[in-house]
């Protein structure tokens, strides 16, 4: 997974690649750039490099889109049927049957799923990934159900961390963005639960969501590492989850002064909570440092790099603001505005649809939230909705036009 062209062979289907190569060799022969012998030798090698797995993938694609949809639908229905069967009869099972069925189902989903991927024995990668995804979900479910069966309690949210690590590992092995999203949700859930439990909250504690801002920064930095490695699909997944975490946390903080409502003294946070606050920023800084040193395309003097460094500083500063006992909604309104504006800029500068689209959405949500906050009481309700609806529609049309133009530009540049 070093991002080299050879390693990215999966981006283009083998049959398409073969056809392109044959066409190119034919054109070069017609233009007398190749001799007849050279052309024959080259044609003989075309397709020979394709692995059996790639050929199976190609075969599967020949089945047609309709069959693929049927297979995937079948996988979903099968998984749902099994889950409903076990859910309906769960309480009837004895303890041994419950535990055995948990182990068996998890193993079956994983084995069948992997063997159906392009690295397995059979060639139904989409079906394989769907089953592997079900295996991942089963693993998380297993931990919860075993804890219920044995009346287990946890001092720390280690089970979330274990399952998130397992999901991420599986995501990279089967190269699945679907499983990657699950893993990233697991990481965020673990972080929220760990901070929540240590700080007296409950599970994924949203009482003081500023701790998620650091996690979001860290996820974005990892997205940058993937970008440097040429793994744009995975980079987009990391970036999307990172942006959602940062924007949602800041949005919540800009609406509610949650800390004041729950009356919790920040001094009650144990050392582990402060460590969990700081570590994501440290990891983000390390990731950015690695990118800067190893990626020859990036220089600190470039405006996007400067913006990224300023944003990192702002996010760290936001955490300092957040522990003050005073009202702080205004600070987070400013921070959300700054972050979304910068996100739009970075989306344009880096030609990233993920950054651009997500930031535009939250920029609009921010504006509309402020409109609600400041004008709901001040305006007649009819006028409020007329203005709100009209501006939403007009703003949406304008933003969509601008977004499409930019996306077309990105596509043209990429071509």
């Amino acid at each position, binding site marked *: 997974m070093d991002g080299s062209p050879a390693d990215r062979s999966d981006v283009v289907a083998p049959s398409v690649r073969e056809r392109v190569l044959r066409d190119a060799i034919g054109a070069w022969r017609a233009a007398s750039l190749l001799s007849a012998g050279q052309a024959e030798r080259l044609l003989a090698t075309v397709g020979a490099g394709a692995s059996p797995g790639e050929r199976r993938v190609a075969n599967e694609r020949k089945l047609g889109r309709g069959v693929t949809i049927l297979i995937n639908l079948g996988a979903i229905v099968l998984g749902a049927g099994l889950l409903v069967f076990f859910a309906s009869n*769960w309480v009837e099972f004895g303890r041994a049957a419950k535990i055995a069925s948990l182990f068996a189902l*998890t*193993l079956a989903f994983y084995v069948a799923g992997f063997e159906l991927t392009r*690295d397995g024995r059979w060639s139904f990668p989409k079906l394989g990934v769907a089953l592997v995804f079900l295996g991942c979900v089963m693993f998380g479910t297993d*931990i919860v159900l075993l804890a*219920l069966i*044995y009346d287990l309690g946890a001092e720390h949210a280690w089970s979330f961390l274990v399952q998130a690590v397992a999901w991420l590992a599986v995501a990279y092995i089967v190269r699945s963005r679907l499983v990657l999203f699950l893993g990233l949700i697991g990481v965020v859930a673990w972080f929220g639960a760990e901070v929540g439990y240590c*700080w007296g909250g409950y599970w994924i504690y949203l009482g003081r969501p500023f701790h998620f801002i650091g996690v979001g920064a860290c996820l974005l930095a990892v997205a940058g590492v993937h970008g440097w490695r040429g793994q744009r699909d995975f980079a987009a997944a990391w970036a999307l989850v990172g942006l959602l975490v940062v924007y949602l946390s800041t949005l919540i903080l800009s609406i509610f002064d949650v800390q004041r409502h*729950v009356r*919790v003294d920040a001094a009650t946070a144990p050392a582990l909570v402060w460590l969990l606050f700081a570590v994501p920023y440290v990891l983000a800084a390390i990731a950015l440092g690695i990118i800067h040193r190893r990626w020859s395309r990036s220089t600190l003097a470039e405006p996007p790099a400067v913006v990224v460094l300023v944003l990192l500083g702002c996010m760290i500063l936001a955490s300092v603001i957040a522990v003050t006992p005073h009202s702080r909604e205004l600070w987070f309104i400013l921070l959300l505005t700054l972050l979304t504006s910068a996100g739009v800029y970075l989306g344009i500068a880096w030609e990233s649809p993920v950054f651009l689209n997500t930031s535009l959405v939250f920029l609009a949500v921010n504006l509309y939230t402020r409109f609600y906050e400041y004008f709901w009481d001040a305006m007649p309700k009819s006028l409020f909705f007329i203005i709100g609806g009209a501006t939403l529609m007009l703003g949406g049309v304008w933003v969509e036009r601008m977004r499409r133009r930019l996306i077309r530009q990105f596509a043209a540049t990429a071509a």
Partner: protein
Amino acid sequence: MRPSRRVAMYAVVGAQLLVLASIVAPQELNMALDAGAAVDLDLVRARSARDSFRGAYVSGESALDLDGPSVVLPADGLRPGERVMVAFTAQPERRPRIVGVERGRRAAPFTPTSFSVPGRVVDPRDGTRGAGRDRRLVARVGRPPVSIALDLPDSIAVDDSALDRFTGPGLVRASLHAGFLGRRYFTDVRLLGRAWSDDARFAWDDVRERLLVLAPRQPAGRRPDWDAPVRSDLFVFDGAGKELAASEIPGRVIDAVVEADGHVLAVVSERRWGDSEASLVRLDGDGGVLQRSAPVAFDRMLGFDAATGGVWVARGTGASQRQAPFHVQRTTLGGLREPRLGPFDSPPPVVVSAGADVWVVETDRHRLTRFDGATGRVVRAYRDLNSPVDVAVDGEAIIVIEANRSQLTRLAADGTVAWRVPRFQGLTWAVLEPGGGGGWVGASTYEGTPAGVLRFGPDGAVTRVAETARPVQNGDWRRGIGRGAFRSTRDGRLVFREREAIAILSADGATLTRVLGFRFPSAQRLRS
């Protein structure tokens, strides 16, 4: 490339199965290799429930006495987060209590009279941090008290079929095992009997020395039929709290009193929820309905008049009978009876019959009025009161609970105040001893410390009798029209309601028994 991915994938899958096995194996070994003795523990007011994933379980209030102020802690104190072992002693007819706390996880084997439970010292700051972790039993030991979260779940898994057996809160017993690896677990879960819900009522049959408990039933089973006809249980005990009989009554009993002939006069609603209308019903000893009145608005019922077999109701003017002025009148199984007492500007909250007189309490008007029960004539109005809520009368002794249940007042017959005793909180009832002018009161605190049951003399001198008792109103949040406590004429024993039990004290204040529920002839197994 492919083999390495395959190896990596199966290594990750294997690691996940190992994680799952590391959860399962210690628990199974803990149970499979455990050969030690077990100790029976009770859950009172246990309720059954069903979780979609976990299945059926029972949870309730542990019978463990978790307050151990006299327990000696390690000399250098206990720090938050420290692992400790809490030792209990189990004695017949007493709640298991804490006898020691030691650091570490080592414990002596269980014996029939002693056992231990591991725990962790709770950080005092956790109280301000909210409920973060799962619910565990918490013991408070030493002075100043240290909280220890015990490694005991507050619920126990049972078979799904067990749900069919709970028609209300139950008495559940389970065997606690030490576990081979030290993790405590329960086996042999069984249902011993029926416990008392908040809406259960009790009545005292003074002639036959019997305690009667009337408890509304809840639909049982995996899919409770909430539209089924409402039923209640009638449980009968002797004066010592021993089970005599149980029967079923149609309808939901809201309150009841025992008449002189042994029949039960009950206020019964046909609805499962709400007390909008109720009928007056006379029941025989087996719970059979002998007579039933037309429905009456329950919020207009003010108190029983057992001597005439009726209840006092407030009747207003107009078609709805809800406009001032109001009169208080008896309604019996045969209909309304004269005389009419009043008029009153608003329905009085409490009416008490005592001998030939009727006492009407008007809390908002700070007034107590004595009527002649035969003619309805006002004998005397007592006005020097502060929001009275209840009155107890015996001859010339008139005891009033007033001032937001914080003050006990004795009035002389002429209306003057004989004495006032303030500094109570949560005065629940007052019961007079015949002839002497003294009596008993139940309260949550007196002079800032837990009160329980106290005795007051004719001169207003208050002495503590049973500090550990926890008297509550006869019923909790519902409005009861019966008395909160009864005194046996024969031997002076006192019967009153606690939250989870009906307590019976001897005449000298010693606890004779606490009736936690009606025990079935044989225990019913809840887990196979």
